[in-house]
């Protein structure tokens, strides 16, 4: 579809004779039409990507890959590529394909600055890049290690809880004994209360009976005394008093004799 559009645009431009004027804008029109197609927004393959090589390709003098030297080695030996380079440079210079002008000096200067910069700071920059990557990996590893540590702590705590559960039986036994003792004590207290209450009731009854007998006894004595006192006539009273006086006299006589 987009190519068809480009084709029609191109044809229309040709027909309208705008070809020469829009020569410079041809690229722009092409690019504008192509942006209607979606670009890659995801990786094309969902399989795991192969690992990146550890180091970049070997390069000699910072420019020429080592494979070039290996390529020429069988035919021309070690000095082959160097001879090729020298010959090429001399050819360019002698035929004035490359003209030495003021730019050569400027080129020498900027190249020396670049080479100095790379030689001096190259390893530092590489170490910095490695450090950035290391920090990234270390952060992820730290997360993983912390998760592992947390899980291990959780496992230990769980084991401690299980140990505590084993000891739970003793706790329950002790509590059960405790409660049994309390119940026993309570029962005995109640028993004692019952005994005391019953005894109080019985004592009451006994006391009642004793009181009744006492009262009966007192009453009887009182009645007997009353009757006896009533039965004593005045005649008897005089006789008894005279007898008592005679007795006392006799006693006093015997007493005086004793003293």
């Amino acid at each position, binding site marked *: 579809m987009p190519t068809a559009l480009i084709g029609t645009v191109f044809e229309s431009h040709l027909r309208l004779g705008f070809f020469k004027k829009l020569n410079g804008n041809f690229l722009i029109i092409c690019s504008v039409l192509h942006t209607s197609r979606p670009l890659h927004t995801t*990786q094309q393959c969902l399989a795991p990507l192969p690992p*990146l090589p550890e180091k970049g390709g070997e390069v000699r003098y910072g420019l020429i890959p080592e494979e070039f030297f290996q390529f020429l080695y069988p035919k021309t030996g070690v000095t082959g590529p160097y001879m090729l380079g020298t010959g090429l440079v001399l050819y360019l210079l002698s035929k004035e394909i490359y*003209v030495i002008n*003021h730019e*050569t*000096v*400027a080129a020498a200067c900027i190249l020396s600055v670049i080479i100095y910069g790379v030689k001096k700071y190259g390893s530092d*920059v590489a170490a910095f*890049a490695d450090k950035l990557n290391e920090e990234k990996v270390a952060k992820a590893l730290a997360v993983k290690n912390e998760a592992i540590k947390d899980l291990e702590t959780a496992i230990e705590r769980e084991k401690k809880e299980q140990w505590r559960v084993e000891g739970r039986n003793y706790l329950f036994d002790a509590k059960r004994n405790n409660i049994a003792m309390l119940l026993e004590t309570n029962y005995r207290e109640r028993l004692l209360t019952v005994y005391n209450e019953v005894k109080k009731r019985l004592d009451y009854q006994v006391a009642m009976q004793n009181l009744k007998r006492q009262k009966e006894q007192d009453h009887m004595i009182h009645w007997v005394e009353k009757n006896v006192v009533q039965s004593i006539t005045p005649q008897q009273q005089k006789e008894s008093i005279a007898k008592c006086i005679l007795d006392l006299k006799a006693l006093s006589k015997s007493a005086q004799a004793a003293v």
Partner: protein
Amino acid sequence: MNLSFFDQFASPYFLGIPLILLSMLFPALLFPTPNNRWITNRLSTIQLWSLHSITKQLMTPLNKKGHKWALILTSLTTLLLTINLLGLLPYTFTPTTQLSMNMALAFPLWLATLLTGLRNQPSISLGHLLPEGTPTPLIPALIMIETTSLLIRPLALGVRLTANLTAGHLLIQLISTATTALLPIMPTVSILTTSILFLLTILEVAVAMIQAYVFVLLLSLYLQENI
């Protein structure tokens, strides 16, 4: 081929085909696209780190609305930096030595900041035309001065970049011509000139990086005032 001093500033053509677009877009080829590997190689790591540093550096003074400009400012920085540094190589064409390109970058971006400010907060934007604490009699003159200063900003941005790079390149050409011319006559003076050229090259590397940074920094400052 024989070069005059200004051939390096001529827009490049090859067999009648203009190469200007190619020379402007070529720096994009030098940056590998970040793929979705987690651990990348050293070049991609450094590239990502430097892009993050540049974006952080530019976006820290801006409020949240200004973060919309992150992509354009970061890519502008990278483009200018790469173009400037690549221009120091011999026989290369530096697009940023063309006033047309620099004005085409500076003018629309400056105008965008100005219009953003005038649209969203017109009184604050216009308030920038009068610095705080000016004595009352000076106000009319100062407003005119500030307006002139405001309107000259795009011109300044473009011309600053053009002039710095053009002057640097020209100086390199001139001193290297002096070196080449003196070499058969007075070799010692030629060596002295070479050392001057060496120092100048180091300066030009610095200038290339600083000018790119200054361009984008000034744009972000104009943005800060207006967003």
